């Protein structure tokens, strides 16, 4: 397995380089360094001189990929791409265009994102699976149909509606929790309860229905009949056998997104005033802060690769027939 992981890590390098190259090319097709300078300097009294000074100060006065004025290897290394990319592979993300250290921002912002994303992931997964298993338990009865109808109803409603409804009823009308905000330490609990609850309910419909489909397929298989024939209770059949065998597709979806939990959720964080990473990238795109966009795309790609590797490992752990090599 170790050999496999090392091999995958080496594969990741050209992928990350390619992603970085693509980010550079796409970003600078849409935004010139002049545009970036103009946005950073504001809308008033922006002179060509101020733009030139800003570009020089932030290193955007260099050519993008090839520097014809330089000599030898410097033609490649003395460019915006080489200067800004090399450090990133050492996890030195540099400073945002407004001067703040990106690494420090990421380290600070990932905790609030995780504070929401981890409970939503764990409790959400448990709730969805339990609900799906319940529907399977009562399959064919009015309870199964009612559960299915509820899932479809929940799926049909926009995510934004859950947020607004949650804030309206729980926070505004019943005054049970703060509408938005965040606090450090144990006090964070007061602020994350509502977004976690809303996110779990918002994901329940699609999640439970998907898992129900998976379990539905498993429940008809021979090993289930055998288990029942052995006299096992339905609960043990479901949780001990059906769930275990349904793990592979569950892992495919769940483990891959595990590292991406760091990146947070834009909508939830924005509405609940959670100072996480979710809105960081979008804010940076709006502000044309290339340094942040580049760093977040790099981090997103890296985490995705890690997620896929974790999925492979989890396959091997969940199913003894799978061998990594």
């Amino acid at each position, binding site marked *: 397995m170790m050999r496999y992981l090392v091999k995958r890590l080496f594969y990741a390098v050209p992928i990350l380089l390619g992603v970085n190259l693509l980010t550079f090319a796409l970003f600078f097709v849409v935004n010139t360094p002049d545009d970036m300078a103009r946005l950073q300097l504001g809308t008033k009294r922006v002179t060509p001189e101020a733009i030139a000074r800003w570009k020089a100060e932030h290193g955007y006065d260099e050519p993008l990929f090839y520097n014809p004025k330089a000599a030898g290897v410097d033609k490649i290394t003395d460019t915006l791409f080489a200067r800004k990319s090399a450090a990133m592979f050492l996890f030195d993300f540099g400073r945002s265009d407004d001067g703040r250290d990106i690494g420090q921002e990421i380290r600070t*912002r990932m905790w609030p994102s995780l504070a929401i994303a981890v409970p939503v992931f764990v409790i959400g997964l448990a709730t969805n699976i339990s609900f799906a298993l319940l529907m399977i338990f009562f399959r064919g009865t009015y309870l199964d149909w009612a559960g299915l109808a509820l899932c479809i109803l929940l799926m049909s409603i926009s995510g934004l509606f859950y947020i607004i409804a949650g804030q309206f009823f729980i926070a505004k009308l019943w005054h049970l929790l703060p509408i938005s905000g965040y606090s450090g330490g144990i006090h964070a609990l007061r602020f994350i309860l509502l977004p976690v609850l809303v996110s779990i309910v918002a994901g329940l419909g699609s999640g439970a229905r998907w898992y129900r489909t998976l379990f539905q397929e498993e429940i008809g298989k021979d090993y289930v009949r055998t288990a029942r024939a052995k006299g096992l209770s339905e609960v043990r059949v479901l949780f001990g056998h059906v769930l275990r065998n349904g793990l592979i597709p569950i892992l495919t979806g769940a483990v891959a997104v595990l590292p991406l939990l760091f990146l947070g959720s834009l909508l939830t964080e924005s509405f609940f005033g959670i100072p996480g990473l979710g809105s960081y990238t979008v804010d940076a795109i709006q502000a044309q802060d290339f340094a942040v966009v580049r760093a977040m795309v790099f981090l997103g790609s890296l985490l995705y690769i890690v997620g896929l590797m974790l999925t492979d490992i989890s396959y091997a752990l969940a199913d003894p027939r799978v061998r990594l090599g």
Partner: protein
Amino acid sequence: MLRHLALACLVLALGGCGKVWNDPYPASRARANILYSAFSERPKHLDPARAYSSNETEIIGQIYEPPLQYSFLKRPYTLEPLTAQSLPRVRYYDKAGRELPADAPIGQIAESVYDITLKPGIYYQPHPAFAVDAHGGPRYLHLGAAGMAGRDSLADFHHSGTRELTAADYVYEIKRLADPAVASPIYSLMAQYILGLRRLGAQLEQARKNDPHGFIDLDRYALPGAQVTGRYSYRITLKGKYPQFLYWLAMPFFAPVPRVVDEFYRQPGMAQRNLSLDTQPVGTGAFMLTVNEPNRRMVLMRNPDFHAEFYPRHGMPGDAARGLLRDAGKRLPLLDGAVYSLEKENIPYWNKFLQGYYDASGLSSDSFDQAIRFGVAGQAELAPAMRVRGMQLITAVAPSIWYLGFNMLDPVVGGLDAKHRELRQAISIAVDYEQFIDIFLNGRGVPGQGPLPPGIYGYDPNAYDPWVYQRRDGRIERRPLAYARELLARAGYPDGRNAATGQPLVLYFDTMASGPDARARLEWYRKQFAKLGIQLVVRATDYNRFQDKMRHGNDQIFEWGWNADYPDPENFFFLLYGPNGKVKDGGENAANYANPEFDRLFEQMRYMDDGPARLALIDRMNAIVERDAPWVFAYYPKAFTLVQPWVYNVKPNFMANNTLKYRRIDPALRARLREAWNRPVLWPLGALAVGLVLAVLPAWRAWRRKERQAAR
């Protein structure tokens, strides 16, 4: 065990905030003399040489003290000394260095000299940069990597100190305007006026090539335009005459920055910890920034070293009746602090305001109908639900203008000849901004009558644009559409068709507005032009492309606005000054309007002192612009603010950015009303529990039945 843990969490979650459960602030601060406000976009820069946006100056205005400030209560906006002993008297000199009289012709004036004397005994807020060691030297300079270890925030520097404000600090800041590492937005403008600033800028550019972010001792660079003349006095020398310079002296750009603070923050390792003047300001103002988490909240607390400053004893007629003089003579600030929370979305912001967790709120379109009703005479007043809560509505017209600009370089809509002028005048009449204000702004605007908005010297509330409006039965009303059609016909487009070719007149509207919200507004514009038979093609684009079009003159009609930097007409007329054209000179004259007569009058007016002669010139300039119609003077925006009943001393002041020190609240009343407004409603929890039981019970029974039934 799990049940106990869950219970403990619930107690912590719900009980951590006292009698109310939804209080987003710590219960210990429920009765604190602290104002609660919000910001929707995090301030990018807090460096006084850099900050220019209103959300930035709203914070640093409370921390930094330039030599002058705007009077809180007096109108029109009036400058008064802040750290200066008096308003500086300007002296003029000719090329030979001889002093000239105050009314000397502009051509003779080679230099203007401002001597500023500071009040002694003003001290900075406590800060580690001022901490001294046993030998009296700076404790936290030259720390090196070892000295920075374990210091991630200012709180990790356990010692702090203060020191007296001196004139050298103001001169140091003026030099910082030229530092490329600071990237001040006003450097290019000030380099035109402050003697030697451009030269200093070139020297610093050279120096920064070797040391892009390190400490450069600006005291070692001479700047003839800013010199220390004594411990408490300094002199600013400008090239020529620039009377508006006094207004700049009331902005944070000219606030003091001590050399030792700059050196402190420029140490290696500081920037990596986000410790810089851009994030941790150091001033002499009434408040100091104690928490800077711009992705969550910013906290200002009272500066313990703040000098003696008192609430004004005199205001305008009516101020006393409005309770604005109740605190006359009291020592400032009246608050202990202010907490600004990041609130990106309007809905939570508005709901938290209604719950009493924000002390004031603007009004978005979503909340407008809940809060405002229009009376029988069309006046805005509070909705009954707001009135019952004791809220106050404060409205004021901002010194800003929105306009529809014509690119004067465009062959169809540009040009100063009669035909093109009549086309623009016809459009000015057809685009009915009274209707626009009603539909899209909920009445929050005043139709524009010229380039100068209210609050700016020279604005005449009785004047109107005679090419667009007419007086009838003592009232000002928009000219009839028939007259606009007549003008259009005279311009060569009868019924919106080219008289020579018969082709319909198609005009292009460039805008950054897009998406569903903008669709209705853009459709409205199409309809306004269609009233004249003109086809309007909307070219919606992003910010970058729009700016690009404007710079290259590839636009025809566009929408733009301007907020006053200072209350002088020069700050608006320069937007129409020929040599300031966007295409030719990269200036702020986006319409590329160039009328030699207007330019000549502008050059006279900008250097004149206020008085009847200047007013006469302003009237003539207004008349020229109104006739030429390079802009459709759309509207002057009107700000609506809702204020909680426990907030006092709120008087809109669009020029001053340091008004927090005058604000007062009644924390006891706030705590009482918050409790009354936010009592937890518990029946939904009970209903939920009952509902769950009712749902689970039949399921449980079905499960039992299923478990017991025999295999089939």
